[in-house]
């Protein structure tokens, strides 16, 4: 939380809607541990990281849905996914990501 907290606070202060994606579980080897976070605002700006860069763009899309609906989503990314070519982790691991709107 520490790495994105300040940025989130700045975005909230100017009235942005903020969505937070958090790694909640990892299997085999994963680039970032549970608790790692990425923040996305409704202008499409992104801060922080939840992987080595391979699932971030997919999570930005999910964040858009969550921002609009307010309903959180639990997503799994990794080589066992159908869209492995798009969002496979280079390390062969798998991560669960929780995407939710940040309540001010």
């Amino acid at each position, binding site marked *: *939380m520490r790495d994105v907290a300040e940025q989130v606070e700045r975005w909230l202060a100017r009235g942005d809607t903020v969505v937070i994606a958090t790694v909640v579980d990892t299997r085999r080897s994963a680039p970032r541990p*549970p608790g790692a976070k990425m923040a996305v605002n409704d202008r499409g700006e992104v801060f922080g990281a939840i992987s080595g860069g391979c699932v971030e763009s997919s999570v930005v899309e999910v964040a858009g849905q969550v921002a609009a609906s307010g309903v959180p989503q639990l997503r799994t990314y990794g080589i066992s996914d159908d869209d492995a070519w798009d969002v496979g982790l280079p390390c062969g691991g798998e991560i669960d990501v*929780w995407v939710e709107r940040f309540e001010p």
Partner: protein
Amino acid sequence: MSAQRTFARLARSDGRAALVTVLTGPLAGERLLLTADGSLEGGIGDAELEARAHEAARELIWAERSERRGELFVDVVAPGPRLLIFGAVEYASHLSRYARLAGWRPYVIDPRAHFATRERFPDALEVLAAWPREAIAKLGGIDRSTYIAVLTHDPKIDDEVLLAALASTPAYIGAMGSKRAQQARRERLLAHGVSEADLERISAPIGLDLGAVGAEEVAISILAEVIAQRHGHDGGRRWQR
């Protein structure tokens, strides 16, 4: 203010908290926040699930680890470990900078007030121009998550730190110096009544064996050693495991 925002504020101010979120089922998105003083904020609309959330939070807030527990995710923030650097020397400026980058809380301490200045150590949380015992008292003593690096080369200062450190239970004690300086230090400490077993608690010469050249690399070798100590590793090569 939401439990989430309280959690974010605590993360920014080096606080300690555990935020439990329900990930699946009809209560998905509900939250319970536990802070260091034991107080709770928010709640989960199911007594049994809330009790499990509370129990997991109580455990992980002190284990300092974020973890999924079935349908619950426990997110933990905790203050970085304290690194007390004795000796306002050049190594200390690099060590405090790198330590801060890695999320540690470095303090620089030296009784020589013209060295122990804020300008020389902008990345330290505090720069204390004080003798070791006074500085340690001011910082609330040495606890199990305190790491101590002794870099002064001045026996008057070094010995005072090491005697205070050995009388308590820091996570790590490291001291700089050549083989000859180590030997002289051993003899002085033994003369002060320190046992051979206690001398073994001092990591000296300080740092991992990186062949470090220059103050920056030496600082990295020291930080690498305290990181390995924190995680219970000895700092070898991963491919050789």
